[in-house]
């Protein structure tokens, strides 16, 4: 198992390397010139050439690639091409807390909705309540998140004026300012995940309830509530946790559109803006971080596969 783990770990690193390499070359072979964009208003070609030389963009591609790779190995992600060449590490370090905060609140909201909803619909299977919960869950899954985001802004920020429309306030400036800026975007991103998790909990719980030990517990006359919360739910949560692992990673990048609507400069926005502006070092850095989240959460999920389904063997 240790050898397997080590191999998977190395494999994960290799995947990250391959993604980064692919992204490096793909972005440079397509149209779009960051220097032209930057110097559009100012420039002479002399200034453009000077800037290219300074940023190393005049070097052959393969040389640029090796420079970049050697620097990454030393923990240096390079600097943004635009503006004042902010270090990519700084840009990501600023964006990451925003995205993690948003993901965390979305996650809390999703769980807070999903667990009771899933339990209720599983215990009252095929009743009106179950149908209603399942309908609402479907609704949550089917609503485009950016649409929900805009509707939330119109209702809660513009009309009722309960919550701020846009922006992000760091946690250091107080818990409530931080939270109130995150509530609407977190609802927008969390709704779909709440729906997925609720459905997961329902089906998982139904299956567990049919297992022998639950039947035994019930037969022994334990109160139904206690059986569900103490015995069935913890067991039902195991497969759910694997979904949750992926969902959390998805939240981190999937918030792109919602970050866009709420003007929060998170990791997703950094990545998309970087791609659109052809800010190569920023894209490469952000890609590495996002892929790290995914590769390692998938690794964790894959390991749980084996625990759940013994038919799949690791060799």
């Amino acid at each position, binding site marked *: 198992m240790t050898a397997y783990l080590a191999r998977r770990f190395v*494999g994960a690193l*290799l*995947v*990250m390397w*391959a*993604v980064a390499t*692919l*992204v490096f070359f*793909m*972005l440079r072979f*397509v*149209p779009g010139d960051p220097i032209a964009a930057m110097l559009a208003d100012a420039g002479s070609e002399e200034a453009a050439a000077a800037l290219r030389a300074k940023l190393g963009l005049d070097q052959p591609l393969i040389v640029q690639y090796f420079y970049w790779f050697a620097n990454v190995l030393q923990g240096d992600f390079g600097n943004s091409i635009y503006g004042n060449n902010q270090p990519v590490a700084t840009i990501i370090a600023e964006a990451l807390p925003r995205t993690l905060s948003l993901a965390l609140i979305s996650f809390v909201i999703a769980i807070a909705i999903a667990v009771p909803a899933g339990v209720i619909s599983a215990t009252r299977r095929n009743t009106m309540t179950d149908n209603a919960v399942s*309908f609402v869950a*479907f*609704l949550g*899954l*089917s*609503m*485009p*998140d*950016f*649409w929900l985001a*805009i*509707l939330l802004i*119109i209702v809660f920020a*513009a009309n009722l004026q309960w919550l701020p429309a846009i922006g992000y306030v760091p946690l250091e400036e107080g818990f409530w300012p931080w939270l109130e800026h995150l509530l609407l975007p977190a609802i927008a991103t969390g709704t779909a995940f709440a729906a*997925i998790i609720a*459905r*997961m909990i329902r*089906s998982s719980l139904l299956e567990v309830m049919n297992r022998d030990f639950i039947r035994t517990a019930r037969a022994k006359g334990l109160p139904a509530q206690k059986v569900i919360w103490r015995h069935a739910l913890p067991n039902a949560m195991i*497969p759910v946790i*694997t*979904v949750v692992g*992926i969902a959390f*990673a*998805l939240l981190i*990048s*999937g918030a*792109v*559109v919602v970050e*866009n609507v709420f003007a929060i400069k998170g990791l*997703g926005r950094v*990545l*998309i803006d970087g*791609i*659109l502006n052809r800010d190569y070092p920023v894209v490469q850095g952000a890609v590495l971080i*996002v*892929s790290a989240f*995914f*590769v390692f959460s*998938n690794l964790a*999920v894959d390991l*749980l*596969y084996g625990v*759940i*389904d013994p*038919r*799949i063997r690791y060799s």
Partner: protein
Amino acid sequence: MTDIISSAPETAEAPRRSRLRASLAKDRKAQVGLVVLAVFFLGMLLAPVLAPYDPNEMTLDMMQGLSWSHPLGTDDLGRDLLSRILYGTQISLFVGVVTVAAALIIGVVLGVIAGYYGGWIDLVIMRYIDLQWAFPNFIIAVYLVAVFGTGLVNVIVAISLAFIDDFARVARSMTLSLREEQFVLAARSMGVSDGRIIMRHILPSAMAPIIVQATVSVSYAILGEATLSFLGLGVEATTPTWGLILAEGRGFISQAWWLGVFPGLAIMLVVLSINFVGDWLRDVLDVRETV
């Protein structure tokens, strides 16, 4: 996105049909879903007949509310919203179906080959799938469109590519577990060719979870197209798409709520119906939702 693994291999064709029909009679959500999808499908085919106006005709009657002449109002360029949504059905549904069909074919081929043959083929294919799996589908699509440019073909290619790994994973894990089943082992020992085993034994048994995955994916593809359009990375055809209508209406929603509500509703209704149908298929095909 969730993967689906089935536990029960299914082979008999006739009983499955009758079971489908019987369970459909009981499943009201699926009935509603199928009816709504049928309505949208008809709307798509009959758009030129049903639409009261040319969907691209601009007038100075900008952002007019709901009226008899414009049942769903007009947009920010004075175009009739009902006509635009009707025509929008064409591209939205087309993108949803075509992308998933392409992803399904490529993904299933890759997944079955990887699962059946194992060894280095599996290793290569799995590394590719891992590579793609290292990114959320949506980010892949955004990346491809942002890099290669907007347009119908690019959007279709981007969304299809993004879904390949989902199908490959499902097909591979199905094949992996089926490979060890008695009936496959028996066929093998009798010297049945690999191609025949795959076509006759593995694919039919693996089809149920793939169909369920496909319905889920169609709904994600429609949402994906809408989201790409919303980010300004969508289809740039003369025919409007729902996502594009929403994106264009984005800056006007509080002055003209209908611009934000109706195209969003159309997306939601179609996606909801597909999910209802998918859920019914999942039940009737006995596909278990796990990871």
